[in-house]
Structure formats: structure tokens, C-alpha cells
């Protein structure tokens, strides 16, 4: 090919690039097994109803059908899952709680036959009152869940779930000082309420799982961000030891949090168990929209300011619409509370959160994890306050920001970022490219800021195997979903071992072979898994030193590491030579193990604060209400960018999803049913929606605990975007929005 030489100064492409441009990259949807059967899921056509009868006789006789399964057929298997609240039936247990809930599974020789037969499963329902709105569900006497499923004392990270009452899935709060007293003496109090829409992550590869049950264990290939979490859930359902459950994760066609925790895996696994063959369950977009969405939220913020425009108190109420099952929403709620009041000095704080069960698709993690929901109202509130106080919104934020090393939340890590510098950089870029007035167009600019207690639980293990030629195989259970973890982790290993990065192979996540990883989420991989990789490399050097000493017959103290080589008794050996000498052949390998746990630099949580600082300039067409993003500014405050282009890619991708929420994306329920379960009516950002100008900044201050001072990226640039767009549109049209997405109809109404 021509043109390669001219581009040789560019960084090498990401290591999955060749496989992905040639169609060779394997995803769960591509997985097959010998004698594989196909499943079609019979989904509820009611939002809330008792199941009075399921007639499967016709389906069982249909061509190609291997079996038809309902919850009655699960024998001794567990019937529910849910890592925080085990409220989620694998197949409906006498009742359905949302439209599209799995009621039965038809397994057949081909996907077409399964789908045909699924049409022949007749389900009789007795309707119950439908509660698709969180406020209505809170006020209602009708209980979506009649019982509590909790085992006493069960905890998951920061969340200690309480028995649900009414339709409350979870409550939490964060309180200090005396908010009521402070608001009474405040010079100015500004109140904002805003609705964050029901959104769907739309990973372009939908949820897909292939499961193979055999008497000695279960093998699952799935679109799963957190294979070790799924292994635990499946082990419980099947009463199997963890080692008997193998969860393999090929390339994932987009995750964004929407593929965290357990989704289709129990369904595919019980189907395989029932028919004694490998069973593949796939979803189309409609089924995916019935599987998981993000929590929508109604948030009210009251902020009191003193005469110098300094915050004296914030009083915040967050109400999540969590859908029919809790999934990860209790943790999302707790994090939303922590992230809602902004990285500001707030001497008196009260944040109360409620996650409400409704008869809609269950909500769970989505990129940003509660931060965008809270920030929409809270950051909009800062812009409204700036207007009321008559000061510049950037200056108002600057005056109240928490500084580097200061505390945001007592007992948590002090702020490991310079938000003032980030804010100035973003605001300067926005000002520098300010557009001149155009007739018929209203323009507005805004910035917004978030800080998230990210990184999740600092539990990670990594293994580096050095071979006799000095090349390395890196084993990690971090899943590659496009974020570039395999590229970044290989680079971290290569730097620690001083070997060319091309000689580091990275294994695909597979719980049978790759070591324990808490999750791939919370923007944690480069920092937490990166530290585990570095520790594994340190361990590998120790092992090489010990083996070199043993081979030379000297004490370990006499062996040193220098420039990627081993020096022993005046001789300099390449690591591969040390391995060969010790094994007595040009063969063998040495393994280093690295562990990260809640200890040392990761003792204090969060492992890092993930920063989101963005600026937007919008143009609003006066006649149509259509909003165009003219300038988007992001700053990746990542401490150290292991792969700068990948960080910028994460930032633009995250910000673009934020623009989708701000302007287009919304799941709309009418009556029992989702009215737009497809990508024609659920509109996501398209190429022509790209901002006219994109400025992607990096802030590298080596202020993180990760390798070379790195901190996480991936979510920060989404978190403040919906708020920034809302504020910019509000400023442009002269009326503050209260609801996203800002469709032309809504903006047109604001204009009038």
C-alpha cells in the first residue's frame, strides 16, 4: 500500500484495529458451538399483570422446536437474580412487571423456527394497574413488588439495601451541616427542577449470549462488561462452584455501562440446561430496549448564596424512575447523590434520593452513572443563580470550586484535580471562537462541571507471563469494548518491562484463564487494572532476579535490573536468557502476579475523582426551534494520558452521547407500552449532527494514583454535557429548560 511511510510518525494503531477493519474481530453475536440451538423469547404484552395461563402446546409441536421453557420448568435452579436486590426473575414468576419482560423461551433448531414458534405461545393475563410514572408509583397503593427479596445484612459496596416499601427500590441520603438554617439566612436562594429523560444506551451490538450447560459446568460467551460478576450470579443460580462457571467475553460491540452486570446470561443458561444443548439468545433493538435502560430522574435543587455569591447550602432531591427491577440502580442512586452537588464548597448539604419501581424497562448503569442526572438540575441551577446574582456563570463557579487537595466529601479521597485551571482552559476556548450574530439565529454558550467518585472497588489482579524469547503474554479480565484497554494495558506492561509493545500479547477476557477483575466500568481500567499490571511486572522482575541469582549461585542482592536487563556478577543478561538458563533449555516461562486491593495508595476511596468540564456554544433557529451545536469543548483531566488519542476518542464519544441525551434521545411510554422501541423513532446522534467545531483538550498534571499519574477517562466528558446544552439553550432563548431532550417542539415552546 502507498502512503504508509508518510504516516510512520503517527502512533501505531490500536491493537484491535486490523481485526476490526477486516471483519475478523469476533463478537458474542458471531459465536457458535457444535449442535447449537437458537432461542426466541416470548415477551410480555402487558406492563403489569398476573399471568393466569401459558399455553405452549402449539409451540411445542411447531417445526424445529426443541423445547419451550417457563419458570415452572426450572427445577432446583434459582429463579431470580440481582446483585444488590435479587428481585429479577429469569422468567416471569406468575406476574409481569414491564412490557417486554421475558415470559417463556422457545428453543429450536434455527432462529427462524424459534421465532415462528414463539408466536404460538399463548399467554393469558389479568391486568393490574399500570404505573409507568415514578411520581404516580410513589403515590399509589398498588405494589409492583409485594415482597422483599433481601437476605439480612446483604451489602454491595456503598449500598445497604433496605426492604422495599411501597414502590421504593432504594433510598439514600448525604447530609452535613444545617441546611434549613443556612437557607433561612442565605441572601439569595435559587431553585431549579429538571427532568432527565429515559434513555437507552444503544450499544450497536445488542445483548447476545451463547450458553453451554454440561454436567461438569457452564460455559457462557456473552456481551458482558463484568464477566466475574456474571460468573457469581450464574454459580448461585446453578449452585455451582465459581470454577465450574466459565464466562468468556469476546470483543464487545459497545458497552457504555449498559452491559454491566447480568442480563441475558441466566436466560440462555437455563435454556441450555433445559434442552441439554448449547443455546444462543440474541436480541434485536426492541428487545434490548426492554432489557436495560438508564435511570431517568426528576431532580430539584435549592441553593443558597451569601452576599459574595458563595454557596452556603444546597438542598437536593433526586427521584429516579428505576423501572421494574432494581439491577444496579441502588448503587447508581448512591453515586448520583455523591455527584449531584458539584465540585463546590458546600458548607451545608442535604441530598435525598429515592429510586422508584415503575412498570417500565429496568434501569441500571449507563455511562456517567448517576452524574448526568444530578448535574442537569444542579449545574443549570448555577447558571440560573449567576443570572439572578448578576455575575458571570464561569466566575460564579470559579468562586465556589473545591481546590486541589481539598475535601469534597468527608472520609473520601481529597480532590486530585485542578478544576479552576480546567474551567479556565475550556472557557477560554469557548470565548476565543465565539460566533458573530446571525439574523434568525439565537446563540448561547455555557460551561458545566462534574466530579465523580469513580474507579469502583479497587480489586484487580493481573498476570504477566514472560516467555523464553522475552516476549510477554498479559492476562487480564478487563473487557475490550472499544475503549482501548488492551492497547493501553499492553503499553503499561511494555514500559514496565522495557520490552517493545509489539512483543506484548493481551489475552481476551475469559474467567477460566484470566485472573480476577472487579469490573470494567467506572472508568477504572487504566488506573486500577493498570496498577495491577505494573505490580505484576514488578513481581516478574523479582522472579527474574531470583532465578538469575540461583543460576549464578549468588545472593539475590547481587542481582540488579538495569535498562530492561538483568545484571549479575558483571554479566548482563536479557530476561529471556535468564529464563533459558534457569530452565536449562531455550524454553520455559516466568510469571508475575499483580494485585490491587483496598490497601496502600488505593486504601482511600474513590481511587480517583473523574472530572468532567465541558463548554458548548449552541445556535437556535428562531423559526423552527432546532438546536445546532456550533462548538464543543472538552478537557480530559486524566493526570497522564497513556494513549492521548484514545483519551480524546473517549472524550468525544462520551460527549456525543451527552449531546444525544440533550437533544434527541428519549424512550416514550404511552399507556402500557413503549412507543418508540426502534432507531427510527429513538433518534441517536448521526454524522451530520457533529458539532461544527470540536476542541479536545488534555490536562496532564500527573495528579492521579494510576500509572505515571494517570486517572480514569471515559465518562467524564458525558456527565456535564446535558446540563451545559440546557444552560446554553436557556441563555439563547431567554427561558430555562426544565426537561430534556430539547427537541425543536420543546425549544419552540420555550421561545414563546
Amino acid at each position, binding site marked *: 500500500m502507498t502512503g504508509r511511510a508518510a504516516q510512520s510518525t503517527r502512533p501505531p494503531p490500536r491493537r484491535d484495529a486490523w481485526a476490526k477493519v477486516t471483519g475478523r474481530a469476533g463478537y458474542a453475536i458471531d459465536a457458535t458451538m457444535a449442535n447449537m440451538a437458537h432461542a426466541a423469547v416470548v415477551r410480555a404484552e402487558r406492563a403489569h399483570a398476573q399471568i393466569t395461563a401459558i399455553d405452549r402446546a402449539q409451540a411445542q409441536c411447531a417445526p424445529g422446536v426443541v423445547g419451550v421453557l417457563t419458570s415452572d420448568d426450572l427445577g432446583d435452579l434459582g429463579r431470580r437474580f440481582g446483585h444488590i436486590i435479587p428481585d429479577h426473575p429469569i422468567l416471569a414468576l406468575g406476574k409481569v412487571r414491564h412490557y417486554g419482560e421475558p415470559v417463556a423461551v422457545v428453543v429450536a433448531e434455527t432462529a427462524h423456527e424459534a421465532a415462528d414458534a414463539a408466536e404460538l405461545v399463548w399467554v393469558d393475563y389479568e391486568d393490574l394497574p399500570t404505573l409507568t410514572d415514578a411520581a404516580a408509583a410513589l403515590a399509589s397503593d398498588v405494589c409492583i413488588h409485594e415482597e422483599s427479596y433481601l437476605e439480612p445484612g446483604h451489602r454491595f459496596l456503598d449500598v445497604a439495601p433496605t426492604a422495599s416499601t411501597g414502590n421504593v427500590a432504594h433510598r439514600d441520603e448525604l447530609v452535613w451541616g444545617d441546611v434549613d438554617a443556612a437557607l433561612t439566612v442565605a441572601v439569595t436562594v435559587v431553585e431549579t427542577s429538571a427532568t432527565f429523560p429515559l434513555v437507552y444506551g444503544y450499544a450497536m*451490538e445488542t445483548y447476545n449470549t451463547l450458553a453451554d450447560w454440561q454436567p461438569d459446568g457452564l460455559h457462557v460467551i456473552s456481551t458482558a462488561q463484568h464477566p466475574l460478576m456474571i460468573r457469581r450470579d450464574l454459580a448461585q443460580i446453578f449452585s455451582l462452584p465459581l470454577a465450574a462457571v466459565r464466562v468468556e467475553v469476546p470483543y464487545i460491540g459497545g458497552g457504555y455501562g449498559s452491559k454491566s452486570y447480568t442480563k441475558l446470561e441466566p436466560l440462555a443458561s437455563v435454556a441450555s440446561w433445559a434442552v441439554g444443548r448449547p443455546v444462543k439468545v440474541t436480541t434485536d433493538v426492541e428487545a434490548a430496549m426492554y432489557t436495560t435502560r438508564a435511570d431517568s430522574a426528576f431532580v430539584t435543587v435549592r441553593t443558597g448564596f451569601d452576599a459574595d455569591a458563595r454557596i452556603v447550602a444546597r438542598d437536593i432531591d433526586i427521584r429516579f424512575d428505576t423501572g421494574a427491577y432494581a439491577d444496579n440502580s441502588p448503587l447508581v442512586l448512591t453515586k448520583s447523590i455523591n455527584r449531584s452537588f458539584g465540585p463546590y464548597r458546600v458548607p451545608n448539604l442535604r441530598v435525598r434520593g429515592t429510586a422508584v419501581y415503575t412498570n417500565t424497562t429496568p434501569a441500571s448503569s449507563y455511562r456517567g452513572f448517576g452524574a448526568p442526572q444530578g448535574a442537569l438540575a444542579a449545574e443549570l441551577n448555577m447558571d440560573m443563580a449567576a443570572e439572578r446574582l448578576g455575575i458571570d456563570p464561569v466566575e460564579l463557579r470559579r468562586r465556589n470550586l473545591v481546590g486541589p487537595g481539598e475535601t469534597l466529601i468527608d472520609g473520601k479521597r481529597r480532590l486530585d484535580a485542578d478544576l479552576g485551571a480546567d474551567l479556565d482552559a475550556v472557557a477560554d476556548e469557548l470565548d476565543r471562537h465565539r460566533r458573530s450574530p446571525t439574523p434568525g439565529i439565537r446563540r448561547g454558550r455555557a460551561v458545566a462541571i462534574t466530579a465523580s467518585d469513580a474507579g469502583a472497588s479497587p480489586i484487580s489482579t493481573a498476570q504477566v507471563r514472560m516467555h523464553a524469547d522475552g516476549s510477554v503474554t498479559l492476562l487480564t479480565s478487563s473487557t475490550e469494548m472499544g475503549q482501548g484497554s488492551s492497547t493501553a494495558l499492553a503499553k503499561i506492561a511494555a514500559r514496565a518491562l522495557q520490552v517493545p509493545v509489539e512483543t506484548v500479547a493481551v489475552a481476551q477476557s475469559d474467567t477460566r484463564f484470566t485472573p480476577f477483575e472487579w469490573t470494567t466500568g467506572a472508568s477504572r481500567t487504566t488506573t486500577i487494572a493498570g496498577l495491577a499490571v505494573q505490580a505484576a511486572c514488578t513481581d516478574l522482575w523479582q522472579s527474574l532476579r531470583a532465578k538469575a541469582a540461583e543460576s549464578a549461585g549468588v545472593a539475590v542482592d547481587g542481582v540488579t535490573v538495569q535498562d530492561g536487563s538483568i545484571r549479575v556478577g558483571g554479566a548482563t543478561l536479557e530476561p529471556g536468557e535468564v529464563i533459558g538458563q534457569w530452565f536449562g533449555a531455550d524454553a520455559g516461562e516466568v510469571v508475575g502476579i499483580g494485585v490491587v486491593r483496598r490497601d496502600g495508595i488505593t486504601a482511600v476511596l474513590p481511587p480517583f475523582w473523574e472530572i468532567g468540564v465541558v463548554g458548548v456554544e449552541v445556535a437556535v433557529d428562531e423559526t423552527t426551534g432546532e438546536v445546532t451545536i456550533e462548538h464543543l469543548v472538552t478537557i480530559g483531566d486524566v493526570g497522564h494520558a497513556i494513549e492521548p488519542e484514545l483519551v480524546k476518542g473517549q472524550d468525544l464519544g462520551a460527549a456525543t452521547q451527552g449531546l444525544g441525551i440533550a437533544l434527541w434521545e428519549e424512550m416514550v411510554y404511552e399507556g402500557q407500552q413503549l412507543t418508540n422501541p426502534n432507531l427510527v423513532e429513538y433518534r441517536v446522534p448521526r454524522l451530520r449532527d457533529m458539532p*461544527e467545531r470540536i476542541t*479536545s483538550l488534555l490536562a496532564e498534571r500527573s495528579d492521579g494514583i494510576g500509572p505515571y499519574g494517570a486517572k480514569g477517562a471515559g465518562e467524564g466528558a458525558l456527565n456535564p454535557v446535558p446540563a451545559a446544552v440546557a444552560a446554553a439553550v436557556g441563555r439563547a432563548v431567554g427561558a430555562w429548560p426544565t426537561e430534556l431532550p430539547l427537541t425543536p417542539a420543546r425549544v419552540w415552546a420555550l421561545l414563546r
Partner: protein
Amino acid sequence: MTPLTGSSGRRGPVAVTSTVIRFRLNGHAIEALVPIRLTAAELLRDRLGLTGTKVSCQLQVCGVCTVLVDGNPVSSCATLACDLDGTEVVTIEGLARGRDLHPVQEAFMEAGALQCGYCTPGFVMMTVGLLTAHRNPDRAMVQEWLDGNLCRCTGYQPIETAVMVAARQMTPRASEPEPEGDR
């Protein structure tokens, strides 16, 4: 491998009607007995093992299933396999010459125009279709052609850059134009 004819099952009549099609796929002659309702994407992915072509929206909105039929980009999830009869089909697997990638594939790699990669085959095929029809497209034309392909990871900017890079590489000029700067 699933049988090429509709399975007859345990009882009842064969419910599907099939037809024999002949077409060229990535340069090779194919003859297959396909059920009428089988889509081109299902034929390629499930029966012929060419899983590089992806499926997602099933409504011709997302573009991940794009293949070239007689040189034109087509959504294979919304095309019946039987309609491929007599055509020349090229999929993502048919672009490279052995180890040598197509310039569009090279450009997507070099420009970092992918993350999860699920949309990549569709974008690459649409770009090949565009550059076959228009050797030297301007930005508006690129945007028009690629607006029917979705990407959820990249924010599109690197993809647009890759297309412009590929266009330049496929159309040698006397003097190399300025590289794309920041938008």
C-alpha cells in the same frame, strides 16, 4: 452449520418455500438453496460464515450490515437473499488482497476511526461505495453518504477524517493537499 433447506421438524408440512440462487460473492461463484424469507445478512453470516457483516437496527437506519451489491451499498438485513440472484456481492471480507488491505481499511486504521469496531465494516463498505461512485468527494457529499451509518463510540470526527484520507490515497494528485486540521 444449519441445513440449507428449511428444517421439516418433527411433524407438519414444510412451512417455507425455498429457491436456488446463484451469485458471485467476493469473486467466487455461490449457488445456494435459500428460503424466501432469508435475508442477505442471514445468508452471509449464518450460512456462509462471513460474520464480518454485522446486524443491529434491522430497519436500514444504522448501516452496520452494509455490503456492496453490483457496486452499490445495500443494507443486507433488509435485502432478501433470493434478491442476490445474479448479482456481484462484496463484503468486508472481500476487500483486502491477501494481507494487503484496501486503502479505506488502511485509512480507518491510521485515523483511529474505530473503537468497539461493530460499525466499522458497514462504514468501510459505505466508504468504498462512495469512493467508487465519486473519486473526489467533498465534505458535504461524505456527510450525505455516511449519514446513514451510525457509530456510538467515536463521535464520527475520526471517521470523517478517515474517509477524506482514503479519498486522497485513492486519487493521487500532483501535490498533496493540506492534511485535515482540527475541525
